[in-house]
């Protein structure tokens, strides 16, 4: 009863009305801030997207216009860059896409499985030598790739793996990329340890904990890793360059490198057209998988 009286007094009070007004003003300000934020993002978007526009524009220009005129709009649309570019090389891009798809899908699966295994061990399991091996793992990331290229080539040559996809795929099933291990370690360590312990008491083996607790709770990290892994493998050209000899087994990025001859006849228009197309699968995957990152909200907020 007493409190009601007080409330009534507050509403009648001019100060309270002022407070109300301030609140209202703040709402307007929030709205304006949101608008500004959008404006900023749009401008930023343009800066970010400009090169792609340029790339698309170039892919639609006749060969002899691409470099003479750097405006975005072509004088006429050269769609043939796409249609002819697809079949411009000795092997059709259909084959290159198929090859890339095989290598990429296997590599992504391999990366996610093997790296999350290693990361789980480093982040959650206690064993002698953990710090030592973690240090070694970090070290493998620090040596410039170019100097291990040749010894590695010789190794794979002796295994009889050159000119097959094995050198591209097998290392990924063996957690060769420390980046993903370290990434997952950092995310796994954020998961409350009591969940592992609860699962342990619930009768879970370490593998079951990994599979039923850690993995489902790391979807944002796994999604991120999947996206990176896919993009990097899809765009990787150094390993395919070194290990693939037969043009029929080339991947898309390697095929793109066949268009340009610094010393002779190049086909820039077709190269740009195929470059644009090569982004499509990656973009689709990106848009699809970033949902995993968003869904992260659902799994967080333990306490």
């Amino acid at each position, binding site marked *: 009863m007493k409190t009601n009286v007080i409330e009534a007094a507050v509403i009648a009070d001019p100060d309270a009305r002022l407070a109300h007004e301030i609140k209202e003003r703040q709402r307007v300000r929030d709205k304006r801030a949101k608008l500004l934020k959008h404006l900023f993002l749009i401008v930023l978007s343009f800066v970010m*997207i400009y*090169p792609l526009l340029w790339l698309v524009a170039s892919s639609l220009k006749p060969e002899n216009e691409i470099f003479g005129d750097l405006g975005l709009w072509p004088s006429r649309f050269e769609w043939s860059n796409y249609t002819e570019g697809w079949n411009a090389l000795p092997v059709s891009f259909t084959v290159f896409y198929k090859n890339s798809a095989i290598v990429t899908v296997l590599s992504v699966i391999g990366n996610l499985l093997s790296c999350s295994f290693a990361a789980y061990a480093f982040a959650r399991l206690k064993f002698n030598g953990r710090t030592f091996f973690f240090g070694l793992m970090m070290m493998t990331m620090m040596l410039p790739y*170019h100097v*291990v290229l040749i*010894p590695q080539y010789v190794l794979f040559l002796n295994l009889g793996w050159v000119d097959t996809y094995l050198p591209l795929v097998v290392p990924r099933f063996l957690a060769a990329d420390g980046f993903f291990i370290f*990434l997952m370690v950092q*995310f796994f360590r954020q998961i409350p*340890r009591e969940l592992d312990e609860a699962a342990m008491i619930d009768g879970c083996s370490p593998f079951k904990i990994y599979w039923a607790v850690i993995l489902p709770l790391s979807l944002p990290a796994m999604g991120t890793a999947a996206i990176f892994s896919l993009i990097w493998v899809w765009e990787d050209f150094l390993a395919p360059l070194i290990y693939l000899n037969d043009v029929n087994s080339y991947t898309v990025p390697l095929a793109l490198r066949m268009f340009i001859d610094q010393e002779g006849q190049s086909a820039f228009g077709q190269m740009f057209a195929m470059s644009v197309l090569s982004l499509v699968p990656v973009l689709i995957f*990106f848009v699809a998988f970033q949902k995993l990152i968003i869904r*992260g909200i659902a799994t967080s907020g333990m306490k």
Partner: protein
Amino acid sequence: MRKFFRRNTAGYVFLTPWLIGFFFLALGPILVSLYLSFTRYDMVSAPVWDGLGNYQYMFEYDRRFWKALEVTFTFVAFSVPLRLAAALGVAMLLDKGLRTIGLYRAIFYLPSLLGASIAIALLWREMFGLNGVINQVLSMVGITGKGWITDPDTSIYTIVVLAMWQFGSPMLIFLAGLRGIPRDLYEAAEIDGTSRFRQFRRITLPMLAPVIFFNLVLQTIEAFKTFTSAFIISNGTGAPADSLLFYTVYLFNEAFKFFRMGYASALAWVLLLIIAAFTALAFATSKYWVHYENERD
């Protein structure tokens, strides 16, 4: 003994794929490269033992080695903080509220998708050239520009800008990290009337510390190893006037252009030591600012 097995089995079982990969695929080549760093090796004929010759030459005679170090350190010093700041800033903008976020996220990742392709090299030279977009914008505000990318004093910063512009991967990692911060922490702070800045300092930064740490370490490693962007933009030469002579560009040219794989290996191991020192420093300081939720040691 049984206790020893019980303690270690699970860890080693999970580590097995990595161990196989490390011992059978990685370790050999790494050791070979270490061996080669003590040899003269032109890749066509067999390596010839040269003791510390490569290292001696590097530190006593090789002016370009020091130049490459200077270029690389400059790049690391500028690009790592700027790129992380850009990535974190945009990630935080994208973390809350807006409905069109998915679209923005894809757009902001685009530059990273384009990577360091020929197209980017052409475009970058164009944009930062004498008559490029940058100078056109500058002239609108009355500043006379110059050939940013062709002036040895400024060319490195165009690569820094390129690195900043391609902030997609750290951004994505930050986003994933931000998703892990419980919303109710912010709600509580909101109710307490904590300012946005304080929320950032008291909630976001500490909660994100493991992810910031990851990005810092990885971006530093990557920055030291930066190769493709500098390589394609300078047509592999490090021009103008060696101002884009990134360490790995120099290393690559020594190896594959001048057939000195032994020397290149020595360069690589020196770089490894430098990076290792920085990483060790980061790990050593991390216990003062990176805390893991519910972690017991």
